[in-house]
């Protein structure tokens, strides 16, 4: 039996929390000098250290420490004056040493928060800790299913092993009510924006450089918090929202049936949008943490921390406030942009020289529509403010019509290329050859005698269908207004 979301909220209050893993954008790995470049040939970015060869020892990447401290500062955290790495011991073939160098009870950053805004209301999300660890290699499962279950064997590539990762753990967040999924999503978006602004990670969710585990529990109002489940592999903003929502509905169904919630790890399916139990481990894993004896403590002094603080860029929240103020928009307009998730994108487009109205039209209109079709957020599309600013400029100087501009956007979404490259490759340009347009107009009139007659009879508005036909014949490269004028002239109808 499945409850509606409203039913769930009528009886239960959700508490959520997120653990977010982010790959840092250092050029070398966390503990060795191997490149972090994505997509290299298998096992070519490996050395004695990241392969866990006997005798090899780790040495900490200083930029990774600085990036982590910057993240901590941007998240209003305290920075530990002394902390250690720890070994997390468990066997897995993609982990070369069979222990992961991580941090256990001494995170580098702790006790912070960020504020996120949803539907005009501000929610404070507490940050429990920010700590450093290393990524694992990648297993490819070979067999009929291509998945771990039923695979005949697996192949391991250690290029990703040892890439610096940070884990950002929120405190449990109660009090969001029906908006819990949206607040969780807004937090993830805010975090992503902060990481981008800091320049510490390229935060490409599609390459797995930002991955979330979502904790969710329900409780009856006034009662203690319920048992939480942890949903792993939630790798897009929309999925964070969906994972919280589907887990709330699932748990409410169980609670209503009098079933206890099992503390367990679940997996999120991008295709179905729901969660499934992870394969339960035959016994609880005991990670046997202990301080990493191959490394010395990290002890940033106040001078170092203050130097990093002074070097922080303007953070997204401050920046957003400043940009919104400069756009001169009404509150309603700002709210519309916020709902479409395009405030920062519009702001950045304006900063690149585009008029605010145009920027808003493109992002809130065509681009938002494309994002909807793909079921992602506009910010997750491979199109940037720079792309849109260029499209706006080309439309403004008459090089492209609005329709061609949309084709340029489509091209960018398909290829990720620059606008000028797309325009050149697709041969997008406004057709101003009057002879060609006249021929196309005559063809359209001949092909649609009924419509032509209506126009001649005075129903001028019907000319739109003929315009569409000409635009189609010229693959959108004509200026619609010019086509309309030519058609009316050929039909002998005065404007």
């Amino acid at each position, binding site marked *: 039996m499945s409850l509606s979301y409203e039913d769930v909220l009528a009886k239960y209050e959700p508490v959520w929390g997120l653990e977010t893993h982010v790959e840092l954008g250092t050029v070398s790995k966390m503990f060795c000098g191997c490149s972090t470049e994505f997509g290299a040939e298998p096992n070519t970015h490996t050395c004695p250290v990241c392969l866990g060869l006997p005798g090899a020892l780790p040495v900490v990447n200083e930029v990774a420490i600085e990036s982590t401290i910057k993240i901590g500062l941007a998240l209003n955290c305290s920075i530990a004056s002394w902390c250690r790495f720890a070994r997390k011991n468990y*066997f897995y073939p993609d982990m070369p040493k069979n222990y992961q160098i991580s941090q256990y009870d001494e995170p580098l950053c702790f006790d912070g928060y960020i504020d996120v805004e949803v539907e005009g209301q501000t929610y404070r999300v507490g940050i429990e800790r920010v700590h450093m660890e290393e990524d694992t290699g990648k297993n490819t499962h070979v067999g009929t299913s291509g998945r771990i279950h039923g695979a005949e064997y697996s192949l391991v590539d250690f290029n990703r092993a040892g890439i610096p990762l940070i884990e950002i753990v929120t405190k449990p967040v109660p009090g969001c009510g029906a908006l819990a999924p949206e607040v969780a999503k807004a937090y993830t978006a805010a975090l992503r924006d902060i990481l981008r602004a800091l320049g510490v990670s390229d935060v490409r969710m599609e390459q797995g450089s930002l991955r979330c585990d979502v904790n969710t529990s329900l409780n009856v109002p006034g009662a203690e918090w319920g048992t939480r489940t942890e949903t792993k592999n939630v790798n897009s903003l929309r999925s964070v929202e969906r994972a919280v929502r589907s887990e709330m509905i699932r748990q409410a169904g169980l609670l209503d049936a009098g079933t206890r919630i099992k503390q367990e790890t679940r997996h999120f399916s991008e295709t179905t949008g729901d969660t499934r139990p992870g394969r339960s481990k035959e016994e609880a894993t005991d990670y*046997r*943490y202990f301080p990493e004896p191959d490394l010395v403590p990290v002890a940033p002094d106040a001078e170092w921390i203050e130097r990093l603080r002074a070097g922080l860029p303007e953070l997204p929240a401050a920046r957003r406030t400043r940009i919104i103020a400069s756009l001169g928009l009404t509150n309603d307009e700002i709210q519309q942009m916020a709902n479409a998730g395009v405030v920062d994108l519009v702001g950045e487009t304006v900063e690149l020289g585009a008029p605010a109205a145009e920027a808003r039209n493109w992002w809130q209109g065509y681009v938002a529509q494309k994002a909807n079709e793909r079921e992602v957020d506009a910010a997750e599309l491979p199109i940037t403010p720079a792309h849109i600013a260029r499209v706006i400029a080309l439309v403004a100087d008459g090089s492209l019509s609005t329709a061609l501009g949309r084709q340029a956007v489509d091209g960018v979404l398909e290829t990720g290329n620059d606008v000028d490259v797309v325009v050149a490759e697709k041969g997008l340009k406004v057709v101003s050859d009057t002879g060609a347009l006249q021929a196309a107009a005559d063809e359209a009139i001949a092909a649609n005698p009924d419509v032509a007659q209506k126009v001649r009879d005075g129903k001028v508005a019907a000319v739109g269908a003929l315009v569409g036909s000409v635009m189609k014949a010229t693959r959108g490269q004509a200026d619609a207004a010019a086509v309309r004028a030519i058609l009316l002239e050929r039909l002998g109808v005065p404007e």
Partner: protein
Amino acid sequence: MSDSSLANGGSGTDLVRLTAADTAASIRRGDVTAVEVAQAHLAQIAKVDPLVKAFLHIDADGALEAAASVDEARAAGEALGPLAGVPLAMKDVVVTKGLPTTSGSKILEGWRPPYDATITTRIKDAGIVMLGKTNMDEFAMGSSTENSAYGPTHNPWDLTKIPGGSSGGSSAAVAAFEAPLAIGTDTGGSIRQPAAVTGIVGFKPTYGAVSRYGLIAFSSSLDQAGPFARTVEDTALLYDVLHGHDPCDSTSIAGLSFDATGAARAGAAGDLTGVRVGVVRELGGEGYQAGVTASFDDAVATLKGLGAEIVEVSCPNFEYALAAYYLIAPSECSSNLARFDAVRYGLRVGDDGSNSLEEVMSLTRAAGFGPEVKRRIMIGTYALSSGYYEAYYGQAQKVRTLIVRDFQAAFEKVDVLISPATPVVAFGIGEVVDPITMYRNDLCTLPASLAGTPAISVPCGLSDGLPVGLQIMAPALADERCFGIAAAFERATGILQIPAVTA
């Protein structure tokens, strides 16, 4: 032996009995070539190693090639370093590019590392000629070299006895004149104890003075590589090659530069006037063989005769060293040895298509590790497991602090501390079967391991024809002091006579 006897090349026997310092001087002068020196030692290995079994792998071609390049460098007029052309035996725990490196374990049989340990590079750069890799207790876990997967090494003084451990191959090679220099590693005494029971000198440095990069880890917070030789000066010469900062080892101490050789040469003047020597009350008495105690008492008298002021000091927490060590080392080893998993290198057992990866890993580790290694992995896994960490590993780390404090308090009163290096002389191969009895061999050496402080073992006599070692311990970073006092003591007592196998 006088250098003049080498004027016309000298006999092979003469060459292997030279000190490293004299060998290097002879090569520099052109009295002998490095190739001749290497050949003489390879001949000695061929003669005695079938009995001693110090080496797991002999790299004759590599040794002769390295020696030839020293000779070429000399011919080209290049200045040779203080140990250029001198042969060395390398403990098999140290990674050597392209040369088999097993750490005494079946699980690494046939592995040829794709890289060199930092100390391997330093040794090669110094023109030292590596003869091969020496036997050891598997993964350096043991005090007798009986835990090697490749069979025991025999003590040159009495082939039925153990050569100490875990660096028993290295100590036996030096004692049997197979090499004038050797590398050992010391985690709880694995340099000092084998040096003591084979009648040579062995030094464990301050933790962090010698790079651990490329040492197959046993217990990361304790492991230190160090030198073996038959004289204090040779030991110091090799130490001066080994020590120094390494950016590849995070625990390596920056900006460190000792002149151990200078300290040894200065100490050889033999005057210890004004030096305060502390005798550790807790490292003696019950459980120490009478012959060991007698030799130690003689050593105390010798030091006093050299002018030292002898003071008895108490280090009450030393009695917990054994317990703390046998929690810390197994805990760290249980994690360090997890990487031997049949995925990237080494043995794989049971991969017949019917077993899962976990089963293959478990079967491989069961087949590839010997009983002592398994025992320690099990103890360490237990000591780190949730609910026990604080009581065991956590508490053991606190005991370390107390031992450090005992040392600090003692060093406020004295310049060095002394004790026997081992409670007993070399015992018979196969004689000690009980693990805890075996562990007690490290009683004297464990405190300095846990405190990370430097300590040297120098021969101080024989008991029933078997060598006894004197341990001299100094404060952290006072490595030179060990050499100075050891050299004074050596000057007064002389170098031990030749062991039975080579006589």
